[in-house]
């Protein structure tokens, strides 16, 4: 099991993202439930933009919905006002197959037509199944298929790598 400092990665991402917020028309930070939203909260706190934080629950847009069903405990999506013509900073914790991001973009477009979507990822673990890449990456960590990376913790966020042997 490897521990990664989430705090350090968030600080690096904050630094990289800061210039985007030096304008009057600030981007909207949107986190994907549940892990991505936690990271988005941290970034939103550090960058403290004038725009409110948005939340996406992509359950209704998953391509494996009929296989895995719903998780009703996940809170509904909420976006602050219109996203038409805005820049969206879309945040997720782990980038793997790319399917979550595809679902998130489909959902965003049902709210409006953003000018631009930028993807921010804490950990890029490789293993893409779709042509989707992040614009800002905390760290790259190529993992095997039988490995899982999870964001944990309530106050202090931690990343841990688990081996799933079956």
């Amino acid at each position, binding site marked *: 099991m490897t521990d990664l400092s989430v705090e350090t990665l968030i600080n690096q991402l904050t630094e990289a993202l800061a210039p985007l917020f030096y304008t009057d028309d600030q981007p909207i930070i949107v986190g994907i439930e549940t892990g991505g939203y936690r990271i988005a909260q941290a970034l939103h706190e550090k960058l403290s933009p004038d725009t409110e934080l948005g939340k996406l*629950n992509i*359950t*209704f*847009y998953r391509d494996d*919905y*009929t*296989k*895995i*069903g*719903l998780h*009703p*405990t*996940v*809170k*509904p*999506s*909420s976006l602050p006002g219109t996203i038409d013509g805005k820049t969206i900073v879309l945040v997720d914790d782990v980038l793997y197959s790319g399917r979550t991001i595809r679902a998130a973009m*489909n*959902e965003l477009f*049902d*709210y*409006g037509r953003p000018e631009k979507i930028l993807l921010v990822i804490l950990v890029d673990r490789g293993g893409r199944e779709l042509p989707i890449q992040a614009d800002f990456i905390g760290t790259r960590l190529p993992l095997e298929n039988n490995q899982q990376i999870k964001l944990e913790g309530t106050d202090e966020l931690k990343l841990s790598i688990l081996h799933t042997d079956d």
Partner: protein
Amino acid sequence: MKNNNLQLSSEGKLKHFLSIEGLNHSILSDILDTAESFTSVTERSIKKVPILRGKTVANLFFEASTRTRSTFELAAQRLSADILNLNIDTSAAVKGESLLDTLHNLEAMQIDMFVIRHQDSGSAHFFAQHVNPGVSVLNAGDGQHAHPTQAMLDMFTIRRHKHQFENLTVAIVGDIKHSRVARSQIHALNLLNTGQVRVVAPPTLLPEQAETLGVQVYHKLNKGLKDVDVVIMLRLQKERMTGALLPSEKEYFRQYGLTAERLKLAKADAIVMHPGPANRGIEIESSVMDGNQSVILQQVTYGIAVRMAVMSMIVSGAVESS
């Protein structure tokens, strides 16, 4: 028991939605929580999610309905399903086709979900027993038996306004005997651990041994309304009334009609519900129906989100078990 288990997959997931009986607290809570997520979908500019994209839903209505049929239709469309509306009383049934033949013909058109309303109790169960694996059946009202989505949208309305069930007193007033809505509501309220469920009706409009349903029986409206949090008025079902169960509609209103004056007996923040269609001046006074304690139109709005929740849940349950 067989009929009730019919609703669940081997993993305990909902695959048909036929009656509240046979379900458990956790499934009912899941429906309410899922519906909560769908309310945000119905509030945004594009009121559609792709969950049922490519699926075909058939609305089979053997009995007239405006509200239920149209909210099922909207729910299916907002889930991106294709929908086929069939009013059977004007088509095959008139020509003598059996229920089973109608079903098989529709299955030949690759329907994924049947929403069925029928005048005979048990018809949705009958359908569910005969559909192919992977096809779901949703009961939109069968005879005097059950109307489970109506009950769930009522539960959703109560939870939205009162936030819990444990400390509530709920009175269901009117024609309990002929009401599939009341039967489903009583089961749902009890499964959700409602503090007290009352039924208020003249003896002629109560089922035999009503107490065994887990309710307190009242014959006088003034007593039944005392300190309740929720009042659910039922429609006087004139079309189901055979024989002299009531002296007259006027007399019924005098004894069991909900007036503004009587509503004062309930708690000050009590809500008034009605599954519709309401008979103004028979079971409910117009001013109460349009008053600020009435949540009757919200029930209609919530009906869409609740039906979306049930449809999305049974589709994933049916796929898994096929």
